[in-house]
């Protein structure tokens, strides 16, 4: 099981702030493919990964990062704090 968190317009686009995913995926890229297949909202919101940032266990990673059961994955836009 992977916990997936969404923030900002990714959250409002998908309509969820988090979901728990049963998956065999071992890479973040494979997980994102599975997420895109879950609904039209997922598919549209996650369409262009160049507009998104990814984190695994609260550390920034690329799409080729490994994932394992129990990981916390987060998907969000570039940050605009400060």
């Amino acid at each position: 099981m992977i916990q997936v968190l969404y923030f900002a317009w990714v959250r409002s686009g998908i309509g969820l702030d988090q979901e728990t995913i049963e998956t065999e995926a071992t890479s973040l890229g494979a997980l994102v493919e599975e997420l895109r297949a879950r609904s039209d909202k997922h598919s549209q919101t996650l369409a262009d990964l160049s507009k998104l940032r990814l984190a695994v266990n609260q550390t920034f990673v690329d799409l080729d990062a490994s994932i394992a059961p129990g990981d916390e994955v987060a998907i969000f836009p570039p940050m605009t704090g400060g």
Partner: protein
Amino acid sequence: MIRVQAEDFNLGQEIAALHEGRRDVGALASFLGLVRDMAPNGADRPQDQAMTLEHYPGMTEKMLAEIDAEAHRRWPLQASLIIHRYGRLLPGDQIVLVACASPHRQAAFEACEFLMDWLKTKAPFWKLEEIAGQGHWVDARESDETAARRWNKADA
């Protein structure tokens, strides 16, 4: 010191706490970020504007602590402070305070700018602007990325 909070802060008290009772701080640089009026035409509808700051609890504190530690590695700082608010704010409200104390002013200034530049691009905060009931997420700015990149080390 790192604080992520919904409540407002008292800048004078926070700055004073960084140097009071000490005799070795010569320079204290600080930066205060405020919510600006977002209406294209300024003063029209003050009550119709808000900015909501969303963040990623846990990762925010982790990233701010990392950024702060990096500033201490790069400059001779005696004390530093990052306070960042989240939640719904109004024009004129305080958003962020960064402060650095050092024996020397160049170190204090540089570390303060570094903290702001890295915070902008590495701390997971997002701004939702609301004007007259219409909300939209603020886009990240290329100029912030450029500002952050100037601190990249040649050997990194």
